[in-house]
């Protein structure tokens, strides 16, 4: 069963067409990589699928929900319940600790649950860094906090936008291993990257070029 589907999806910024009549699907529990060069439309596609952006035409279904039929509040609720986001720049709140950053996602989802937040940080190997602020964490640790924050509300889909773009090789391996582990445990993972070596770790690669699926 498809958890993500797009039909003739188009997103344009004025005269620039970022996503061009795109029809794709992702099965539940699949690990998919969107790959393409800069400007290929992969981040725009991710923003639309993650309910962070609207689209110009076409249809998008996320876990059976038609995004075209949802208003901003509907997209917010869908994002809260179905989607976890991992960013290249981590985007952690600098004045909150690792634990508080994770609990922030709980707060805006429903209610805070400190034991659950501690558990998820323990799962990503940060049980000893709970009370450290982002400035006191390494890049790899910050990205693991970001992943913990994305997972704490147990969304079925995890979108990771260049998650290793700011990490060294060792941390890159650790983060990829973590994503693969999540996938093995049944989570749908969508990885956005321009790096073929990373994309190769996914079950399937969807290559994008000028906003269209590109089959080499």
């Amino acid at each position, binding site marked *: 069963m498809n958890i993500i589907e797009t039909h003739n999806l188009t997103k344009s910024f004025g005269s620039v067409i970022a996503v061009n009549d795109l029809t794709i699907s992702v099965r539940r529990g699949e690990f998919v990589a969107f790959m393409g060069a800069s400007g290929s439309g992969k*981040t725009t596609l991710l*923003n639309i699928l*993650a309910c*962070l*952006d609207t689209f110009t035409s076409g249809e998008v279904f996320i876990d059976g929900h038609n995004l075209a039929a949802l208003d901003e*509040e509907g997209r*917010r*609720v869908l*994002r*809260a319940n179905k989607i976890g*986001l991992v*960013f290249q*720049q981590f*985007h952690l*709140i600098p*004045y*909150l600790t690792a634990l*508080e950053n994770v*609990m*922030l*996602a709980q*707060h*805006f*989802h429903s209610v*805070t649950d400190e034991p659950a937040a501690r558990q998820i940080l323990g799962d990503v190997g940060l049980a000893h860094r709970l009370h450290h602020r982002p400035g006191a964490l390494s890049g790899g640790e910050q990205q693991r906090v970001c992943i913990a*924050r994305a997972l704490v509300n147990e969304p079925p889909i995890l979108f990771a*936008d260049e998650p290793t773009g700011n990490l060294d090789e060792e941390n890159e391996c650790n983060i990829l291993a973590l994503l693969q582990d999540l996938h093995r445990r049944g989570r749908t993972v969508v990885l956005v990257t321009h790096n073929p070596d990373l994309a190769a770790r996914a079950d399937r690669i969807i290559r994008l070029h000028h906003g269209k699926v590109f089959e080499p």
Partner: protein
Amino acid sequence: MLTQMIFHSWHRNPRRTALTVTTVFLATALISALLAITVSVGDQMARELKSYGANILLEPAVDGDYLDTQDLPRIKEIFWRHNILGFAPLLAGTVTADDGGEVAILGTFFDQPLPVEGEDDFHTGQKIIAPYWRIDGAWPDDARPEALAGARLAERRGWRVGQTLTLAGARPVVLSGILESGGEEDELLVVPLALAQELLGRPGRADAARVSALTVPENRLSAKARANRDALTAEEYDVWYCTAYVSSIAHQLEEALPGARARPVWQVAASEGVIVGKVQLLLLVATLAALLAAAMGVAALTAGAILERAAEIALLKALAARPRHIALLFHAEVTVSALLGGALGCGAGWLLARHLGQTLFGAPLAMAWITVPGVLALAVAIALLGAWLPVRQIAALAPAEVLHGRR
């Protein structure tokens, strides 16, 4: 969680926080000082304007009759007795002078002690109600045969300070001073009331009395009462009676002295109302200007904060925060700053009011504590008003654009 975020973000940017606090502080300091002045300006201005003379004239209810001077202490027994600054009875007539010619005299109180309940050492007379009288020499003693000669009269007759006059053929009176009032008194010989009563053969009598009362500016209600007191409703009457309008004080004087008719001197009363009203309007405009300037300052600072924290706002939206949750963060931050700035502003405003009171009225203005919660509420209102427009930008901020660096 929200409290932690507010606490952290509030002191994370001390420069911006200090600027917000300072903006609100300056505005509330000015506003609380102006409020203190607005509250006190009526009384203070009324006191200042008292130097232009009495504002109520008491006359016999029947023409040709006299006031009984024994009744006059009742003036200080009315509901608004504490607003009665002083009064002076008047008794006019003519007597013969040394040269055999007639001289017009005016009997009055100069600085007469009067036993009044609740006010120790109460004195009343022209010295209190006519401070604009210029005396060359000394004020007469009410208990002694002394007099003031009007400037024009003294010049015409060649009288000098210290000279002893013989009135009514046998009564020696010492000229303690020459009076220049700019009015009819400049043609009169002004003597203590008791002496005038003796010389004119009218013991215990007075033609009239001038009363100086602290009043509030006239308004629509007092104007209605002035036009027709019977037209007031019972509720309006109670309000009018219990407000220190010149007309209600005059009415109470008539109640206290049944044989008397009290007439407000409208030129003085109206001037008070007009001047106080204009001063209060000016203060209101200055207060509004301060409010607007502070709100604009807070708006600029909040807009800057939103721009600076766009990534954080975008992240919160990506984490499914509602715009109103994020707006609440900013509103809570400015509210905390406003309360701090407002509290400091109240203190500074009080000091400023003391200084201004001393400078303008010669006495420090009392702190009206009742204004403190009002000023604090105003401080919060300034901050929220200022933050309102920029915070609305939060709803329009697209997380996708900010988080991926397109903005």
